[in-house]
């Protein structure tokens, strides 16, 4: 009954494909711009361990494996047997002609669980999964193009509002 949820998003990033590929390929970089991802530990060339944290203090962890890897072109990954939530994704880097940056497409898919915990987990993967993926991808673009992620968190406001 639980259909897999699949979302995809494309953005153009003003950097060469090789640079983007290299940064993403080190999965330990992903928590810098993926909001709910707390930590990724890379075990070896193929295997890594992902930890997310979110509502209800639910932590979801899984081991992932790189399922396809084409240098400067594509990286695909999937959770392995025994994951809290089965999920997979890929990112494709496609250089635009005439030095107009790189089209970056990300597709992710996960199998939702039922129940309260299932719902909390669903939130981890995004209230609106499409917007969350879009926001994560935009933060990736900001980081690559500017070296930082634009924010106003922590700035002053009237009447000590936060």
């Amino acid at each position, binding site marked *: 009954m639980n259909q897999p949820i699949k979302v995809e998003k494309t953005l153009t990033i*003003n950097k060469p494909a090789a640079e983007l590929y290299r940064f993403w390929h080190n999965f330990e970089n992903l928590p810098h711009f993926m909001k709910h991802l707390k930590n990724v530990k890379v075990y070896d060339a193929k295997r890594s361990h992902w930890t997310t944290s979110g509502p209800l203090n639910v932590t979801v962890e899984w081991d992932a494996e790189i399922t396809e890897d084409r240098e400067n072109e594509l990286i695909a990954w999937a959770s392995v047997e025994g994951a809290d939530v089965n999920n997979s994704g890929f990112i494709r880097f496609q250089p635009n002609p005439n030095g107009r940056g790189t089209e970056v497409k990300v597709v992710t898919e996960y199998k939702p669980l039922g129940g309260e915990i299932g719902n909390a987990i669903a939130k981890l993967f995004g209230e609106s999964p499409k917007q969350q993926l879009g926001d994560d991808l*935009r933060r990736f*673009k900001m980081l690559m*193009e*500017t070296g*930082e992620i634009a924010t106003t968190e*922590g700035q*002053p*406001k*009237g009447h000590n509002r936060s």
Partner: protein
Amino acid sequence: MKAVCWEGTKKIEVETVPDPKIINPRDAIVKITSTAICGSDLHLYNGYNPTMKPGDILGHEFMGEIVELGSAFKNGNIHNKGKALAVGDRVVVPFTISCGGCFFCNRSLWSLCDNSNPNAWMAEEMMGHSPSGLFGYSHLTGGYAGGQAEYARVPFADVGLFKIPDGLADEQVLFFTDIFPTGYMAAENCDIEPGDTVAIWGCGPVGQFAIRSAFMLGAGRVIAIDRVPERLQMAKDGGAEILNYEEVEVGEALKEMTGGRGPDSVMDAVGMEAHGLGLEGFYDKAKQAVRLETDRPNALRQAIVACRKGGTVSVPGVYTGFVDKMPMGAFMNKGLTMKTGQTHVHRYLQTLLDRVQNGDIDPSFVITHRLMLEQAPQGYEIFNDKQDNCIKIVLKP
């Protein structure tokens, strides 16, 4: 520190708030020496922007001295665009926030920067794509704390901050932050050929700089339209012929003055508040806000109908949503071109500094009021209601 906060429609308060801190590596903190109230702030004051939140710090026209720099300025960060900045530098701050590294910044389209609006999703829902972040100008354009305050945090300081040489007073350079480049870009957008006639609706600060810029760029005649006597007088002092839209039928008068042909280019330096809103997601909120004030007359429609065939319509006036009853038939059949946008401030800074240093213009001419920061609430009221012959207010922290 003290800061001017928006607490609701026509509710401005000077409050004590925490000092801003460096958040990102390319940030700077500027101690503000002069700041101004802009016509754009009035759209917020009057409640026309549904993405304002109580407590937001206002202001996007400010300058001062660098008191702190982020880590990117110390460690040779590769994203730092290499502008050497140091604590103690005297700088002006463009109101548009630009990263310097995206497709748009690379093309000098600074106000369209891809990376400076943390709330880009909001703008994308309404407009398809997001413009750059702006200081003190609602959550739609990032929700950045503004510069009507004692201090401000400036993101991408290496790209934005512009150093001012010694010997120039604050009042001669403060308007580099917005209204001078805005008037200049609006005149540039008129594609002026030597001897052209340019008609400008709105003799507020933007209109005033547009008049002078149009002449600098080769216009033969400028016809300025407003109804406020002292603003029309200031336009006249700048060399414009003037029309009071309450006294004459503007379209007819313009035809008469141009031998029936119409002005070569027309400019809307008014903006359209009342009818300018109607965004799907924000429709009801906007409608609420709109009920609080009457519509402004429709400068843009008038301008399109008045423009000569094949002419150009330049729109520096701010719009946020949808506009009713655009004379699209006139626009299309007369083969007009429209150019618009938030100003690409960074593009004009050096040009305008040269102009001031050459003595072509002294931008302080537009200032009518100098107040203390604490007097901001009064300042908003005076400026909004055009009391006391007010045209431009500078606030001193």
